[in-house]
């Protein structure tokens, strides 16, 4: 346990350092291009979801975002998911990945993932593939390998339906599987949970789009059993209102 805490501390330091160095680089690299260089060092920050969810109980704030720094074929990639209820952080997950293009539409990504919340926290190694599948499905899938033989698999897919050039409906789905029970966190082996969302955004600019939508999640198998034991619901339908932005 002690060793693990040490690891965690180091992990946090690494994260802080990488964020610091990214911001340093950011200030250093503009203007991005001089004398016709084809492949400047660029950064992108995408806040895919920053939203308030309306549920039966307390309404959580959710942040789901990504940021990268890099060049055409190689990037450092950060992915973050945070959920807050009544200013308490219920969930906080951060991934720091090296992303390497392996095909015209696909990036291979590997690195580390840290779940800071809920307690106890978990650390994982990440092997993932992100890209655009035929028929314009945006896919992000990753295998996670944690301590004590824990494994997890996450599949995410998203599609964009244009009602107009600016009014865009985004169906998306996320499915999580786990290799074994993690009872402390209420996670069961096998298919654990499915989350599906439908968000309608209006792009005031490409970079700035408020949205409304619904979000539904349901737990399955052992995870559902653990939830029932705790007296919690196994599925939840939420209204959401939020903002999508990038720069």
């Amino acid at each position, binding site marked *: 346990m002690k060793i693990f805490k040490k690891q965690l501390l180091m992990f946090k330091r690494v994260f802080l350092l990488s964020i610091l160095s990214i911001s340093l680089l950011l200030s250093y690299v503009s203007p*991005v291009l001089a004398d*016709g260089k084809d492949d*400047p060092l660029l950064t992108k920050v995408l806040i895919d979801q920053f939203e308030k969810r309306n549920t039966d109980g307390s309404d959580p704030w959710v942040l789901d975002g990504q940021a990268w720094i890099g060049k*055409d074929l190689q990037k450092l990639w950060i992915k973050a998911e945070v959920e807050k209820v009544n200013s308490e952080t219920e969930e906080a997950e951060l991934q720091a990945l090296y992303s390497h293009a392996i095909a015209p539409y696909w990036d291979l990504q590997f690195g580390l993932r840290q779940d800071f919340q809920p307690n106890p926290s978990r650390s994982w190694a990440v092997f993932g593939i992100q890209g655009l599948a035929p*028929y314009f499905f945006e896919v992000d899938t990753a295998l996670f390998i944690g301590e004590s033989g824990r494994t997890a698999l996450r599949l995410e897919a998203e599609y964009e339906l244009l009602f107009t*050039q600016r009014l865009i409906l985004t169906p998306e789905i996320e499915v999580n599987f786990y290799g074994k029970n993690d009872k402390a966190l209420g996670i069961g082996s096998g298919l654990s949970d499915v989350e599906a969302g439908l968000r309608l955004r209006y792009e005031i600019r490409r970079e700035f789009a408020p949205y409304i939508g619904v979000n539904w999640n349901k737990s399955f198998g052992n995870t559902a059993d653990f939830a029932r034991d705790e007296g919690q619901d196994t599925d939840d339908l939420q209204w959401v209102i939020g903002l999508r932005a990038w720069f």
Partner: protein
Amino acid sequence: MNLLDSPSMSRRRFVTGIAAGSAFFGLGLGSTLSLASPSNRLGPSMLKGNQFDLNIGYQPVNFTGKDRMATAVNGSVPAPILRWREGERVTLRVKNNLAVDSSIHWHGLILPTEMDGVPGLSFDGIKPGKTFEYQFDVNQSGTYWYHSHSGFQEQTGLYGAIIIDPKEPDPVSYDREYVVMLSDWSDEDPEAIYAKLKKLSHYYNFRERTVGDLWQDIKDKGVTQTWNERDMWNQMRMSETDISDVTGYTYTYLMNGVTPDEGWIGLFKRGEKVRLRFINGSAMTIFDVRIPGLKMTVVAADGQNIEPVTIDEFRIGVAETYDVLVEPSDDSAYTVFAQSIDRTGFTCGTLTPDIGMTASIPNMDIAPTLGHRDMGMGMASMPETSETSAVDHSQHQMSTAKTISDKKTDHKSHDSLPEVLGKAGFGSTREITHVSTEAGPQVDMRAISPQSGLTDPGIGLRNHLQKYGRKVLTYADIKNLYPTSDPREPTREIELHLTGNMSRYMWSINGVKFADADPIQLRYGERVRITLVNDTMMSHPMHLHGMWSELETGEPSHIPRKHTVIVQPGSKISYLVTADARGQWAYHCHLIFHMAGMFRQVTVS
């Protein structure tokens, strides 16, 4: 043609714009003169002679209602028109008043390699505060242009026209002449545009397919056919509406530096023959030009005289020039109309006998969409009507789309085989092959059966004769006025594939970008054929410095000489090059955001 005979272009601007007598000394006063004011509807001034002082500097401009800083020459956007005489030696002292390196390239001029103005190949560029003296003999005549070859300075205003009067009497007779310089202006920094394209390549495309379009297609054609038609695009993850990377969403299109709202003005008297020297000085925009009510007789392409050909409409790629004659026989005004290839904007001006008289501005044509032919899946039997006839596509769809993603590259090298080359003037007869460097994340498409771009007017211009009664110029219509100067057969053929990845916004040749590429070696004196195959869905205007690109339009005795050649999407085209200029030359796509990657050094030794 005496300069003073054409008051509208020359004398008038001389008198109003420039302190008397300064013309032959150039404009040493650059920043104090502000000729770039967009309220000036007559276009830039002209400098004539053989000694010029050109000052590159920052210049406040306002084209859209927002104050912006342009890069200008002698305070002018476009830069002043330079008028030279064939046979003279010109000296151009170019001072760089910018905070960054700059340069000027004399586009289409045949000159010594060290005078070509390409930083890194011809010279080191012009450092801030420094002056570089260009000096060379002018051995050609016609319409050309000059622009910066550093960074994105061309996008921010550093481009101007060159007119070279012939030593011998001009075979083209005319009473009056105007330069018509087309360009694209954005209030955004070009660096920001480039970064946006890398982060979201369809950023500027507001013509994506919507649910409404899908519903309409299903209603019109049924589910099966709609599915089939879209299958290729869905498989390839590309958009058929992806015509221009940067569009009218950010661009204001200019004619002689004047916005379409204001409108450039060219005056004429009834019955005069007016020579219009069209130059596309855009960073990214290909234009389709017409003058409703007037036939145009094209008399020169890329500065070189051609056999006159009368048309109603022509496409002008970035960096190309066309000289046309018009003869307005009445006292009406006419609109010179240049719509962008993707129909997201236009620029226009007025040819008029009276400054107060204007003509109506036509509507833009329907925005084109890409078809199979434009994706390199042209079938010989298929009509050239990708934008109208989607019916034929469905039957080929499944098989061709599959092949493109499964296509194995051919590692056979043609250079090692003794091969019979196509006859000079008729283009390549070789079977197109894709080299192994074309495989990888940097290339998203390879044309399976690229068709010749010679007779194809191009996307958005096909069938205009049937549809609108407008004859459109094609490359096949262009014949040199004079006999081919080098009638030799090519001794070898160099096949280059224009490649890229749209969504990552990467550009390359044969899948290799300039930074990673070896120079193309030409032996001094040899006659070679270059065959360009466009493995992308964009049109690429390819520009070879230092030597003519002799376009093989099927007339070996009168091969036209060009400096910039559009290679249409999914198509191929061939030209001959006589390697008669020693040195290091640039060879690249002239779209400014493609150029850094889609670029080669050509070494002649």
